[in-house]
């Protein structure tokens, strides 16, 4: 799903949000464990922006968000138990731990509450999971490069923070992609820790030892740093995959205007909280929803760049809010009705 189609669907649906009688009495709560970075802040803002009109339109009776003061599983478990007492019909949760709040989740399910976890998902079987397919994200990068460089070429891989499963998953996807397309060869690999300054230093350190690099595969938050390192070394700029950060998009726009530079950008939108909201609403509405759903990536292509850059705040991440219709599509894709 591209940025533009999501945006268009959003505009179309905002005008046509109908009153849903079936869930008009239902109350949904968001249990969030952490609000200390720009991604989470954007996530909470998206929740408010989408759920307020939904409450006003009478789609649901309430959609309150709660964030624990400290990022601790025991505190979030207590918070969820409080939500059970408050009588919410559904709890949407971004969990501090995939396992440590399972007891509280089970209590909620036993009390007849629908629990939908997203981003930080939980392993308790009674809850729904909206997970991110990071492996596919890595594979998609190679797929895109295959279209741009049919003959293949040398790749530089920038990895994330060592030891975190997200890094392993994206790396596995990239490795699988390269195996399927033997024209590509990973000639260097560095850890950029998803931070522009770290990525820049790491790439600058490894560049002198590398042959010509055709493309850089990344994990997000590291593309701008890589570009700076290539420029400082006086080497031609390869195709650098971007990760939806505002500084990356701004750099891409500059290059595009100057020399017609082309690339693509992909990451998870913080607005995934709103997808979880609509999924919870659909379950309350009695729709058949499979327990495991996958978040679509937010992909920005050459044509969408200007629109995406305009709507992304400085220092922030490109975002998109999901609509009821988007949620229906995600559910259908997973085999539900």
């Amino acid at each position, binding site marked *: 799903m591209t940025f533009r189609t999501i945006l268009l669907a959003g505009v179309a649906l905002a005008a046509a949000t109908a009153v849903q009688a079936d869930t008009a009495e239902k109350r949904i709560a968001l249990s969030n464990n952490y609000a200390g970075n720009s991604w989470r802040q954007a996530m909470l803002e998206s929740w408010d922006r989408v759920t307020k009109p939904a409450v006003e339109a009478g789609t649901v009776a309430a959609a309150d968000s709660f964030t624990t003061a400290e990022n601790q599983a*025991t505190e979030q478990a207590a918070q969820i*138990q409080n939500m059970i007492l408050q009588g919410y019909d559904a709890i949407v949760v971004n969990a501090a731990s995939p396992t440590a709040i399972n007891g509280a989740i089970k209590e909620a399910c036993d009390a007849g509450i629908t629990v939908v976890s997203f981003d930080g998902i939980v*392993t308790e079987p009674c809850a729904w999971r909206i997970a991110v397919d990071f492996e596919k994200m890595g594979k998609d990068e190679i797929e895109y490069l295959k279209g741009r460089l049919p003959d293949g070429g040398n790749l530089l891989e920038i990895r994330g923070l060592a030891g975190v499963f997200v890094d392993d998953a994206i790396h596995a996807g990239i490795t699988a992609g390269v195996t399927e397309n033997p024209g590509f060869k990973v000639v260097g690999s560095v850890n950029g820790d998803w931070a522009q300054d770290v990525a820049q230093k790491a790439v600058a350190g490894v560049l002198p030892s590398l042959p010509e690099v055709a493309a850089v595969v990344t994990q997000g938050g590291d593309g701008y740093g890589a570009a700076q390192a290539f420029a400082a070394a006086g080497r031609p700029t390869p195709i650098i995959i971007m990760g939806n950060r505002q500084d990356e998009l701004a750099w891409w726009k500059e290059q595009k205007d100057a020399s017609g530079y082309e690339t693509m950008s992909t990451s998870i939108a913080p607005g995934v909280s709103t997808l979880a909201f609509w999924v919870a609403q659909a379950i309350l509405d009695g729709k058949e929803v499979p327990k495991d759903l996958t978040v679509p990536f937010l992909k920005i292509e050459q044509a969408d760049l200007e629109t995406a850059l305009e709507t992304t705040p400085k220092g922030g991440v490109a975002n998109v809010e999901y609509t009821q219709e988007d949620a229906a599509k995600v559910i259908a894709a997973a085999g539900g009705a």
Partner: protein
Amino acid sequence: MKPDSLRVLIPALSFAVLLAAVFWLQPRAMSYLGLNLLFNLAVPIALATIAQMLVIAVNDLDLSIGTFVSFVACVTATFLNDSPVLGLAIFAAAIATYALVGVLIHLRELPSIVVSLGMSFVWGGLAVLILPAPGGSAPPWIRALMTAKPPLLPMAIVASLVIAAVAHLIVMRSSFGTALRGVGGNARSVERAGWSVLKLRAATYALAGLFGVLAGVSLVGLTTAADANIALRYTLLSIAGVILGGGEFTGGRVSAIGAVIGALTLTLASSFLTFLRLSPDWQIGAQGAILIVVLAIRLVLNRQERRG
């Protein structure tokens, strides 16, 4: 009124006021199920608070209890579940380590804050080694125990009453308890009376270790799985619980019943703030404010009692 009963009276009163406020905000809490949801996560905190109280009774402070409970939780969700004998052996070794720490602190006259801070990294490291990624599963018997539905009173309340009664018997009614509080009050005279302060301190730490183990096991009974960082908050919560429950940092002045009430009050305070729909930015501050108000009331009452 005797100072000892006053020590318990103020925490009990503040608990009652807070409970009334929660019932008023959220009448659904006024039921068997509601009370259990409100208090079941306070059970492991109460056990950790008793562990901390024992250490505070001998004028020491344990900064490792949070990571220790996390470590125990990881062992419970893995070894205790897969091979109970090995799990119990690990617990025995952990309790022995706690006793050794007590011996070390006593013999070398080391500040307990420094030693236990060091130990917190040891326990934290072991927890990550045992469970590098969150997971494991709770032994069925502890899950059954923690989710049991006894008649009349919910499990959380029954467990709290049992913990308070047992800890009260140990600390206030047994000769060991008297000597233990004596070490905090005047170690010299306890020694002159023929007790070995070294042995007392080792036993106190071992007992604290035992309560720490119980805290970890009961926590996994509630959560069904573990995480290496599951109980980091317990260090500060347990200290706050002891002080809120009428204990003091020096002089062996502690109250077991007060400590349990203190742990319940802290749990209740955060629920109260959630029900108030207070923004998370203010919650930690508000929790601190509740603590300060209770302590201020205690100080004023203590002073008046001394004058009268």
